């Protein structure tokens, strides 16, 4: 099948590649770029395991073609930490609050939560629950995910010191 040239920024890095027009973005990210953090859980946009941050929006990449991401600025879970390895407050908070178990939904969940906190830096628990309702988790029952996002928000807003959660 004829391939199409695409160019995009992924985790701050310029990417150029030839892809088949029918290649799903999640397959391109996972198999060509070998960023296997985002997962595939349903192929129907329901579970959110494949969530990427694309041009400032949370996008389920299992129902988007790689060619549609031409020119896009994409962030995956692998790009969440800072260049020096310092983890994003969400990554710390998910561990501290036991916001994950099998880990399969976690990359999508954190990527979604990252955008949620950009959109609403100080969400209520109800707003957090609504904000992550496009991401399914089968292990945690969400309660500790909500707590983790709340903790990360507090830290990012400077309303909570790091020691208090220990």
């Amino acid at each position, binding site marked *: 099948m004829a391939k199409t040239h695409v160019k995009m920024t992924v985790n701050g890095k310029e990417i150029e590649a030839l892809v088949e027009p029918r290649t799903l973005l999640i397959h391109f990210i996972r198999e060509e770029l*070998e960023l296997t953090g985002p997962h595939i859980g349903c192929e*129907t946009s*329901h579970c959110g395991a494949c969530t990427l941050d694309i041009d400032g929006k949370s996008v389920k990449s299992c129902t988007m073609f790689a060619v549609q991401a031409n020119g896009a600025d994409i962030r995956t879970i692998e790009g969440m930490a800072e260049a020096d390895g310092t*983890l994003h407050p969400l990554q710390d908070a*998910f561990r501290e609050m*036991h916001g994950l178990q099998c*880990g399969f939904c976690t990359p999508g969940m954190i990527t979604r939560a990252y955008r949620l906190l950009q959109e609403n830096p100080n969400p209520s628990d109800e707003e957090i629950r609504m904000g992550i309702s496009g991401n399914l988790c089968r*292990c*945690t029952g*969400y309660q500790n995910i909500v707590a983790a996002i709340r903790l990360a928000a507090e830290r990012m807003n400077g309303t909570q010191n790091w020691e208090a959660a220990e």
Partner: protein
Amino acid sequence: MNDMTVPREEREAKLEGMGCKRKRVEDVRFTQGKGNYVDDIKLKDMVFGDFVRSPYPHARVKSIDTSAAEALPGVLAVLTAETLKTVNLAWMPTLAGDVQMVLADGKVLFQNQEVAFVIAEDRYIAADAVDLVEVEYEELPVLVDPFKAMEPDAPVLREDLEGKTEGAHGARKHHNHIFEWTVGDSEATDLAFSKAEVTVKELFSYHRCHPCPLETCACVASMDKIKGELTLWGTFQAPHVVRTVASLLSTIPEHKIRVISPDIGGGFGNKVGVYPGYVCSIVGSIVLGRPVKWVEDRIENLSATAFARDYHMTTELAATAEGKITGLRCHVLADHGGFDACADPSKWPAGFFNIITGSYDIPTAHVAVDGVYTNKAPGGVAYRCSFRVTEAVYAMERAIDVLARKLNMDPAELRLKNFIRPEQFPYPSALGWEYDSGDYETAMRKAMETVDYAGLRAEQAEKRAAFERGETRELMGIGVSFFTEIVGAGPTRNCDILGIGMFDSCEIRIHPTGAAIARMGTISQGQGHQTTYAQILATELGIPADMIDIEEGDTDTAPYGLGTYGSRSTPVAGAATAMAARKIKAKAQMIAAHMLEVHEDDLEWDVDGFRVKGLPEKTASMKEICWAAYNNVPPNMEPGLEAVSYYDPPNMTYPFGAYICVMDIDVDTGAHKVRRFYALDDCGTRINPMIIEGQVHGGLTEGYAIAMGQEIAYDDMGNVTTASLMDFFLPTAVETPFWETDWTVTPSPHHPIGAKGVGESPNVGSVPCFSNAVNDAFAHLGVTHIQMPHDNWRIWRECKRLGLTG
């Protein structure tokens, strides 16, 4: 050098041993997207397999034409039953003593059954080729309703069993009958019923549902033809069993097969069985000499691998007028689908369903289970429960509520009246189990006090009166459940998988610097084994948990174990961990005695080392002992510090809990709101309270889904109608209630550390609790039982039937 001068509390805290809310080791990689799941595996020359599946639930396969598919560039092979017959693999044995088609051999028995396996250079070409395989079917009459399976003129599903009147579990009564399994004293039970002052009888259907872990089933098979070695990565909850089965099926010697379960994205029972995808991938790799990857999509997962439940339980209780239960009788019609592929211990065709007498002192009981074939997917896995325990608990906990209504007693009071009392343990149940321990009344009373049960009942009465007056359109339901589980399969005298006893194992090696590695026969799918086993070892050995690596899932390195399901990791492998640690500690004590030049009986253990009795300043810390193990052991002792334990548990463990749910139901929409859910669990000794709480949250959420809407449904034609996440209910964060957790601690007397297992309790205990709440909301209107799932439409329909809404 004496690091034991530090105060005891500080040394204990440093270990992060049992009882500590230790943060999970696993999360460091998972939160950074560095987990390693099967679909993340990428091997040189790897190719992809995909299935052609039957659109029909029951049909003869007249012909399969693979030529167009094979002609497509990039397609390497198309396997059919005919191909598999050349290697004697068109059929495979199931864990339940039946056989199952790997690929359709002459006919199909359920919709989406595997018909052909296409292998191509990439997954897109494989999908294209699937469409090019032409299969000619001749439709046959479909059997969907299990209650019609044994009618004289019911369609014959399993022609391969024609004339076979004996199955793996005794006589077959009909061509669609699989087994009848009976337990208990039938005559004594009949007598108890004939003498009873009060009896109740109700059919409780526990509908078909599915574990639906977020990661579907998958594998990569890689045959090295030169070395004659097969490596198989997969989403396996029991990697060693898969190795043994793969060896038996393929005739590759077992030492030439390496099975690896990498990180697993949730299991919940879905990943216990052996599926056609695994067999076809192995055959494909042997044929092609290239690694073959197979990954289910979600529709395949929901419609073809491993359903759960589908038990239809006619349950009866006999009691005195005062509410003392005198007998229990239950007949189960079990829908097993097209093949009996239940993942139960081999001698238990209905699992441990005979735990049905539950937490109650019931003197006589009898249970009969009839398994039947239907045109539905095979499976019958223990979805976050020990084998058929959730079905049994559901029947008992619904039945006791029905009895309470009939007696006009409060359901919590009726439970209290019938509990097995603490002094009765070890308690032999009427159906053959010996419960190890329990203190049910304490747990029930704590639950009732915490939620102010009496206050809730008063509020409910007020709300019902307000409803009568037309002041509200809501009804309030209070659900109570008190469950006793049976987990930790199990003693090898009565539990095996294909003849292999259900022990489990731990192998520990201590390094000279006092760091350690422990390898286990189990495999985590999110339970946090890397964290919790290290905590057991930390407490047992006085080595900080952070200095202990836990490794699982690679059959080349891990000791043989039966895997993780049925809440067996803590009861069995957790015990093996403690026992192996104690072997090491015994040797450490001899080394310490040698180091300190005293008799070993003169030493006493103190957190992380030994002290000389009466001379507390004379110590040998574990760190010092580990070093000495490699250079200063007593004469005639082998150097090194290693141990292995294969633990055969003397009994199951019996975790229990008291759950209470408060729910409001809008009669005009059927919508419900869980106002409060309180879960008290007693899992014995608590290894990591944070992880226990997380397990409980997750199990409650699954139980909520099952009770309130999740279903694998079939229409009358045998089409599965809920095979995508559009139709199959998985709660989001919005629907999921807030969970309150609590605990009591009644240690298991036979488990080395007193632990019982907890992962499945919340699923088992919560389903009847939600269902009881729904039924309780309507109980004052004469309702005894509404079938699950209690989705809005079904509840609304009940409201309409009762004339509550227009």
